[in-house]
């Protein structure tokens, strides 16, 4: 009798627990869309509008647009490891190198013929496959506040070497304005290194890097340059605690002159002050070569190859890839569309585009860490550069860290 009571009690507990696991029956189909965007991003608003249109045309379909937390990459890694890949996810420049084994190839989709060939180096593998729909073709340079430079008598077109830049920054500092705004709290040091590195290495040295042999001197030169700006107090004094939002505010209010960020920084800054005049210029080269722009994949979205809703997700991407939709999405980030049959409004960056990009004479280099460093080196770039900016480490010490991580991560990924 007693044992029956015990069994009854245990059964009751299990039954109660099980009721907590039951879910309500759902109607229709919901596509989980991990946007990688903040809730107030302009691209998020554009996706909301496009999703509403798609839902209206496809009754029973819901596009669940999920904004990103601060740990988007870590969250995605956990979900990939668990085999729980979202229907649609932001690939933030890593559709090929990190995510491709989990994503459906898209080169046979109807819109694929309009895929911008500029993106091929970063997004297409040797078999001709690519794994994400590119909202934009990211082209970035050294962001400047034209109003501030005008105030101190500097023409941005005259900045073609790092000496020119340092002279301009010194004039800005003399005017009581922060020359370089960087977001130490949001990996701003890594972006600084990513912008400088392509111009620190020669083509032969880049080949060595790609083959897994770290070349010291160019990276030492890069870190020396970073340190020289620290010694001249050219960085924002709140560097360590500054977020990207702080940098956007500083640029928008004329409290900072330069920033090393993707163009989404300009969109964010103009949200704070629509009247501010911002632009970008080609990044000077440390080796003395011609200045260059940085570009490749940034806002791109892949589809889970194992997802139950793959065909529906492909249909949604087809909808987004239509010229009008693709153009509206690219306009929201102020970038060139990823589709060659779409056009976008570049807003504040139209002048910079016309001057440096339209004629194709300025070389476009890929994001350094994605192409020449092993997977996982981004954090090392951030922390090593950060330690130099904050004076916690000499360039030689930071270089040792980069070299050590390069060696161990290259060994791990090959």
């Amino acid at each position, binding site marked *: 009798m*007693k*044992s029956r009571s*015990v069994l009854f*009690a*245990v059964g009751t*507990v299990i039954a109660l627990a099980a009721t907590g696991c039951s879910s309500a029956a759902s109607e229709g189909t919901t596509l989980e869309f991990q946007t990688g965007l903040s809730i107030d991003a302009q691209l998020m608003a554009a996706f909301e509008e496009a999703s509403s249109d798609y839902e209206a045309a496809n009754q029973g379909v819901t596009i669940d647009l999920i904004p990103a937390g601060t*740990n988007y*990459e*870590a969250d*995605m*890694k*956990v979900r*990939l*490891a668990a085999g729980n890949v979202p229907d649609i996810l932001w690939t933030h420049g890593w559709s090929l190198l*990190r995510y491709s*084994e989990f994503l459906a190839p898209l080169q046979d989709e109807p819109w694929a013929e309009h895929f911008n060939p500029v993106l091929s180096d970063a997004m297409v593998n040797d078999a001709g496959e690519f794994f994400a729909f590119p909202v934009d073709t990211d082209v970035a340079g050294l962001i400047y506040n034209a109003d501030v430079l005008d105030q101190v008598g500097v023409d941005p077109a005259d900045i073609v070497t790092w000496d020119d830049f340092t002279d301009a920054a010194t004039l800005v500092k003399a005017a009581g304005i922060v020359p370089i705004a960087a977001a*130490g*709290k949001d990996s701003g040091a890594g972006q600084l290194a990513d912008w400088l590195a392509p111009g620190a290495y020669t083509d032969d040295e880049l080949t060595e890097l790609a083959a897994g042999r770290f070349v010291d001197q160019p990276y030492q030169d890069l870190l020396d340059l970073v340190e020289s700006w620290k010694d001249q107090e050219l960085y924002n*004094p*709140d*560097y*360590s*605690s*500054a977020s990207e939002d*702080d940098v956007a505010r500083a640029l928008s209010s004329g409290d900072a002159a330069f920033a090393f960020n993707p163009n989404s920084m300009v969109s964010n800054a103009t949200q704070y002050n629509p009247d501010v005049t911002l632009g970008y210029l080609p990044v000077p080269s440390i080796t003395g070569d011609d200045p260059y722009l940085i570009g490749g994949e940034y806002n791109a979205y892949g589809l889970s190859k194992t997802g139950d809703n793959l065909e529906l997700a492909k249909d949604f991407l087809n909808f987004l890839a239509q010229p009008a939709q693709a153009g509206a999405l690219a306009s929201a980030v102020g970038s060139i569309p990823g589709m060659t049959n779409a056009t976008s409004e570049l807003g504040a960056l139209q002048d910079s585009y016309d001057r440096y990009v339209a004629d194709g004479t300025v070389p476009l280099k890929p994001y350094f860490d994605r192409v020449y460093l092993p*997977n*996982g*080196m*981004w*954090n*090392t770039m951030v*922390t*090593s550069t*950060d*330690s130099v*900016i*904050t004076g*916690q*480490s000499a360039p030689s010490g*930071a270089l*040792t*860290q980069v070299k*050590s*991580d390069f060696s*161990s*991560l290259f060994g*791990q*990924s090959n």
Partner: protein
Amino acid sequence: MSQVTTLPRAGIRRRPRRGRGAGINVFYLPALLIFAIFTIYPLLNGITLSFTNWNGYSAARDVVGAANYLRLFEDETFRMVLLNTFIFGIGSTVIQQILGLGLAVALDRPLRGRTAIRAIIYLPVLVSPVIMGTMYYLFFQYNNGALNDITTLFGGERIAWLSDSQTAVLIIVLVNSLQFVGISMIIYLAGLQSIPTVYYEAANLDGAGAWQQFRHITIPLLQPAFATSIVLNLIGGLKLYDIIQVLTGGGPGYSTNSVSTLVGVAYFDNQSAGYASAMGVVLFLIIVVFTLGLNTLLNRRRLEQQ
């Protein structure tokens, strides 16, 4: 009428019925199951991962033997972070014992509003470390930080408190100590209230002063409380994670990381899940050694005093 023979009551007690305890055991099986799933399995899985080169998300992984453990010996960053971890663990423990004991002694005496004061001191324990860290981040940050606003109010210069690694480490120790000092205070208060007052009365009659009473009565009789409080604080300090993430994110560079936060960096950012697991195993062993060693030491001292 049949005759019913009953056993003497004492006899029943001496002969436990088979299966009487087994029924009770069923009730703790769910807890045991949850413990096995969420603690034992991850621990064993983590140990297994530490012998692989897994990147943390891909299906592919190779066994690399003890390579991850050997790498720890050569990794200067890990050595620095290990030192930080000891500073967080030992520093926080020392501060919490001194403050906790002082507050407990002060608030053990009749004092107007002492219940409210105890509650206020204990309140931060109930707050999430993320919230506590954020509050102090807003206090110490360069622009709009309360401390710098006060400094500039009096004509001083703004100071980047969290940009210097040594200052930042000390701030982390301080914030952690202030948050959890309430636990030490409560443990010592319980210990103080278990000391019979007759000892103090006898000491008074013998002419012992307050310090002598504290030194020769309070401290020896608080030995069990010391053991509990020190071990709890030490484990918490060695595992410190949330406050560091919110206050400094481990920066500048790697300079304010603890082993716990560096595990996250290695696992998610550097995509070295195998190496991160090796760090986690080492941290686990350090905590086990510290805890067992300290427990043995404090118990031995207690037995010697008895």
